[in-house]
C-alpha cells in the first residue's frame, strides 16, 4: 500500500475509526489530500476524545497551573513540584474505566502499569500508588465481581512492582453499576535536574523502542475509551499486563537515563506507537520517521496498521543520541529487555511510517496533535437533577433519640463508610520502608524521604453524590476535602492532579456537569492556592443513556516540614476533643439520607472556601506547634460517625456533649449525622485547650469543645451510651461481609 492508494470512505469505516464526516472533511482539508487507510486509523485514534481531549481541552484552560513550587505543569507525562533539597515530587492520575468494565482484574492492573510508566518517563522513581474507585451497590453479585477483580488487579500489579499503594478512596452508588471507575495515581521523586521531558529533538537522533513485543491487543483502545457502553463494544481488545516486565523496564529506564545520552522518553499508552511518536515529536517541534518492520512482534502477519495502533502494554519509546546507542542497548540487554532502533528524528515536522523502506503513511505531526478539532457544546442542567436538589430533607421526620445507637451502627457498616482495610490489606503498603502513616492510620498517607526531614502526604477524594446534585459545588468539595485530608496529617498541599470522569459530553446535561465541575475545581484551587499540575479526562462513561454521576477525582500531594510531626486520625490516649469549623450541618446529599431513606437528594453542604482555607491553616499551625494528638476530617456520615471512627482506630472511648450543637441545628438528625464542609475533629492533650482556643480565635475559625476521651464506651450525654467494641465490629465488617 503506498501513500496514494485510493479507498472508499464509507460511514462504517469512519465509525470504526470514530471520526465524524465533518472531522473527516477537516482532515482531508488539512492534509490537502485523502488519507489512506493507515493514515485514517492514525488520525482517528489521535482525534479520539481519549487522546485529543476534544471536549475538555478548551475547558481545562480554566485551571490555575502555576505557583511558586511548580516545576512542571500540565503538558508532559506528569506534573512536578519542588520539595526542597533539590528534589521534586512528580504526580499524575489516570483512568482505566472502560477496560476495567470489561475485564476488571486486567483492566485495573494495566491501569496501574500505565500510570507508573508516566512517572518514570519523567525520570522519577515511583514511590507510591493511590487508587480511586467507584462501583455500583456492593450487595449485587456483579458488583462484587467487579470490586474483587479491580482490587485484585491493582494489588497484583503494584505489589509485583514493589511500589506501595498507600491511599485511595472508594464509593458505591447505583449509577456506577454499568460503568465502574478505576483511577490510579502515582507519585514519584527525582532530583530536579534529572527530570526528563518527552521532547524529541536533535535531527538524526535515534528512536528506540523497548519492552514487550507488539501484539494485536488493544487496537482501537483509545477509540473504545471514547464511546459509550464499554461492555458491548470491543471485547477483543483486552490486554493482559506483565508487571514483571514493567519492573525490569522501570529499573532499566532509570538506569539508562543516568547515562545522559537519552534526549527524551515517552511511554506507549492509548494509540500506542502512533500517539507516542506524534506527541514526542510535537513537543520537540520535530518530525519522526519509523520503520514498522523493525518493531518486534508477538504475532506473525501483523499489518502496519496493527503495529502502529497496537496498545500492547509495557513498552517505552526513547530518543537516543547515536553515539550513546550501544551503552543504552547494553543496559537494556543486561535487564533481559528487548530494545531496537525503530526510527529517527527528522526536521520536517512529519510522522512518516515506512514499511521495508517504502512510505506507507506521512502525516504532519501537528495535524495529529494540535489541529485536533475541539468542541464547545450546549450546556443545560437536567430538570431531574434540579428537582432532586430541591428535595427538603426537613420534610422527613426527625430521628428519635433512642434510635441513634442503632443508626450509628448501620452507618458504620455502610460500604461508603466502613473500614477500607479489606482493600488496603491486599495492597503492599510497607515496601520501600517509607510509609510513616499507612492507609487507615491517617487522613492521608504520609511517606518519609530517606535522608531528609520533610515528608510527603497524598490522598484522593471526590464525593459523587455532592457532584451529582451540584457539580460545581461538588467539585469544590472534592478539592476542599482532598486538601483538608492532607492538612489533617500536618502537610501543606502542594499540587493537584485530577481525573475528570463524566458521561457523554455530547449530551447537554453531561456537558453542563463538565463545565460546572471544572469551574468549581478551578475556583477551589484558586481560593486554596493549590495549582493543578497534571490530570486526565475520561468521558463517555455511560451505558444505554445512563451516565455516571460527575466524578472529578482530586489527587493531592502535600509536604510536611518535619515528617516526625505527622498526626494520625485515631485518638491517642486521653485528651480533649474539639470540633473546628461550622457547627451547623445539613442532610442534603448525605450518606444518612441515602442509607436510611434511599434518597439521593437535597442541596449538598455549603462550602465557604475562605473559611476552608483558614481551617486548614489552623490545623497545620496547631500540628506544627506540636499540640495535636489526632485530627480527623468529618466527611460522609457526619459528626457522630467521625468521632466513632477516631475512637475505634485509637481504641479509646469518650464522653461528648452535643446540646449547644443541637440548639444551633434545631434537629437531632442534622446534628449527629448531617454533613458539612470544613470540619475537623482535633484531639489535644489536657492543658493545651487554651492554646488551641487562642489559635482558632486568631485564625477566625469557629471552635467547639466536644468532649473528653477515656474508657471503652462512646457516650453522648443524654443520647447515647454504646460499647466501642460493637461499633468497631460493625465498622470493620462492613466491607468484609460482602
Amino acid at each position, binding site marked *: 500500500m503506498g501513500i496514494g492508494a485510493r479507498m472508499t470512505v464509507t460511514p462504517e469505516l469512519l465509525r470504526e475509526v470514530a471520526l465524524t464526516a465533518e472531522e473527516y472533511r477537516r482532515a482531508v482539508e488539512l492534509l490537502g489530500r485523502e488519507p489512506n487507510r493507515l493514515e485514517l486509523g492514525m488520525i482517528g485514534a489521535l482525534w479520539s476524545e481519549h487522546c485529543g481531549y476534544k471536549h475538555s481541552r478548551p475547558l481545562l484552560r480554566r485551571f490555575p497551573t502555576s505557583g511558586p513550587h511548580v516545576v512542571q505543569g500540565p503538558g508532559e507525562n506528569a506534573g512536578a513540584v519542588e520539595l526542597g533539597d533539590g528534589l521534586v515530587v512528580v504526580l499524575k492520575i489516570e483512568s482505566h474505566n472502560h477496560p476495567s468494565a470489561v475485564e476488571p482484574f*486486567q483492566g485495573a492492573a494495566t491501569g496501574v502499569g500505565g500510570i507508573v510508566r508516566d512517572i518514570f518517563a519523567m525520570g522519577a522513581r515511583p514511590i507510591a500508588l493511590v487508587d480511586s474507585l467507584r462501583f455500583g451497590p456492593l450487595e449485587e453479585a456483579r458488583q462484587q465481581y467487579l470490586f474483587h477483580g479491580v482490587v485484585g488487579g491493582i494489588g497484583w500489579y503494584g505489589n509485583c512492582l514493589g511500589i506501595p499503594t498507600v491511599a485511595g478512596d472508594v464509593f458505591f452508588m447505583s449509577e456506577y453499576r454499568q460503568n465502574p471507575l478505576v483511577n490510579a495515581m502515582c507519585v514519584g521523586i527525582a532530583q530536579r535536574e534529572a527530570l526528563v521531558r518527552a521532547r524529541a529533538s536533535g535531527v538524526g537522533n535515534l528512536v528506540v523502542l523497548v519492552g514487550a513485543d507488539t*501484539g494485536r*491487543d488493544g487496537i482501537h483502545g483509545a477509540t473504545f475509551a471514547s464511546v459509550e457502553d464499554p461492555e458491548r463494544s470491543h471485547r477483543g481488545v*483486552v*490486554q493482559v499486563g*506483565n508487571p514483571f*516486565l514493567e519492573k525490569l523496564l522501570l529499573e532499566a529506564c532509570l538506569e539508562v537515563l543516568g547515562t545522559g545520552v537519552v534526549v527524551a522518553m515517552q511511554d506507549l499508552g492509548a494509540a500506542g506507537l502512533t500517539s507516542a511518536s506524534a506527541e514526542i515529536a510535537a513537543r520537540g517541534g520535530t518530525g519522526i520517521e519509523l520503520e514498522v518492520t523493525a518493531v518486534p512482534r508477538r504475532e506473525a502477519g501483523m499489518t502496519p496498521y496493527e503495529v502502529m495502533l497496537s496498545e*500492547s*502494554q509495557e513498552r517505552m519509546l526513547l530518543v537516543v543520541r547515536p553515539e550513546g546507542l550501544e551503552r543504552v542497548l547494553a543496559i537494556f540487554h543486561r535487564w533481559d529487555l528487548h530494545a531496537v532502533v525503530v526510527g529517527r528524528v527528522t526536521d520536517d515536522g512529519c510522522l512518516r511510517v515506512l514499511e521495508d523502506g517504502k512510505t506507507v503513511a506521512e502525516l504532519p505531526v501537528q495535524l495529529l496533535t494540535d489541529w485536533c478539532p475541539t468542541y464547545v457544546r450546549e450546556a443545560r442542567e437536567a430538570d431531574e437533577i434540579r428537582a432532586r436538589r430541591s428535595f427538603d430533607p426537613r420534610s422527613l421526620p426527625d430521628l428519635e433519640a433512642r434510635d441513634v445507637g442503632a443508626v450509628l451502627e448501620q452507618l458504620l457498616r455502610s460500604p461508603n463508610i466502613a473500614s477500607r482495610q479489606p482493600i488496603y490489606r491486599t495492597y503492599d503498603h510497607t515496601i520501600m520502608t517509607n510509609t510513616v502513616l499507612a492507609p487507615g492510620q491517617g487522613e492521608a498517607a504520609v511517606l518519609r524521604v530517606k535522608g531528609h526531614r520533610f515528608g510527603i502526604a497524598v490522598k484522593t477524594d471526590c464525593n459523587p453524590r455532592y457532584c451529582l446534585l451540584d457539580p460545581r459545588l461538588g467539585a469544590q468539595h472534592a478539592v476542599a476535602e482532598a486538601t483538608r485530608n492532607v492538612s489533617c496529617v500536618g502537610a501543606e498541599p502542594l499540587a493537584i492532579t485530577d481525573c475528570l470522569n463524566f458521561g457523554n459530553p455530547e449530551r447537554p446535561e453531561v456537558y453542563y456537569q463538565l463545565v460546572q465541575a471544572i469551574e468549581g475545581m478551578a475556583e477551589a484551587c484558586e481560593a486554596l492556592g493549590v495549582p493543578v499540575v497534571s490530570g486526565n479526562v475520561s468521558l463517555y462513561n455511560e451505558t444505554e443513556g445512563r451516565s455516571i454521576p460527575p466524578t472529578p477525582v482530586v489527587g493531592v500531594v502535600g509536604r510536611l516540614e518535619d515528617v516526625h510531626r505527622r498526626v494520625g486520625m485515631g485518638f491517642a490516649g486521653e485528651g480533649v476533643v474539639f470540633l473546628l469549623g461550622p457547627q451547623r450541618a445539613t442532610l442534603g446529599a448525605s450518606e444518612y439520607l441515602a442509607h436510611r431513606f434511599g434518597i439521593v437528594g437535597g442541596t449538598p453542604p455549603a462550602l465557604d472556601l475562605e473559611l476552608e482555607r483558614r481551617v486548614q491553616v489552623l490545623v497545620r499551625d496547631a500540628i506544627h506547634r506540636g499540640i495535636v494528638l489526632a485530627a480527623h476530617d468529618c466527611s460522609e456520615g457526619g459528626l457522630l460517625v467521625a468521632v466513632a471512627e477516631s475512637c475505634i482506630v485509637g481504641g479509646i472511648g469518650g464522653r461528648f456533649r452535643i446540646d449547644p450543637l443541637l440548639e444551633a441545628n434545631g434537629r437531632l438528625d442534622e446534628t449527629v449525622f448531617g454533613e458539612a464542609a470544613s470540619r475537623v475533629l482535633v484531639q489535644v492533650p489536657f492543658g493545651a485547650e487554651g492554646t488551641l482556643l487562642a489559635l482558632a480565635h486568631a485564625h477566625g475559625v469557629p471552635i467547639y469543645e466536644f468532649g473528653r476521651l477515656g474508657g471503652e464506651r462512646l457516650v453522648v450525654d443524654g443520647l447515647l451510651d454504646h460499647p466501642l467494641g460493637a461499633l468497631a465490629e460493625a465498622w470493620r465488617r462492613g466491607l468484609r461481609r460482602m
Partner: protein
Amino acid sequence: MKETGRWRAEVFVSLRPSVNDPQGLAVRDGLRRLGYDEVEDVRVGRYVQLWLRAADAETAERRVASMCEQLLANPVVEDYRFVIEPA
C-alpha cells in the same frame, strides 16, 4: 431429582491465542535457560477437576458447559474445553 451417577469433569482453560500470556513467556524463557532450547512456545492456563452428580452423561455435560460459561472461564480472554467420565 433422582441424580444417580457421579461424574468427574476435567476442564482445560487457556488464554485465547491472541491474548498476551506473560506467564507462558516466563516459563518458556525459564525452560530455555535450563537448556530446553527445543521449546518454541508455552501457554499457561488452568486445569479444573470437578466431581458432580447428574442423571446421565448428557446432563453432566450440559451443566459443566454452563459452569464454564458462567464461572470457570472468562469468555473475554479465555477459551475452554472439557471431558467427562463416570467417577
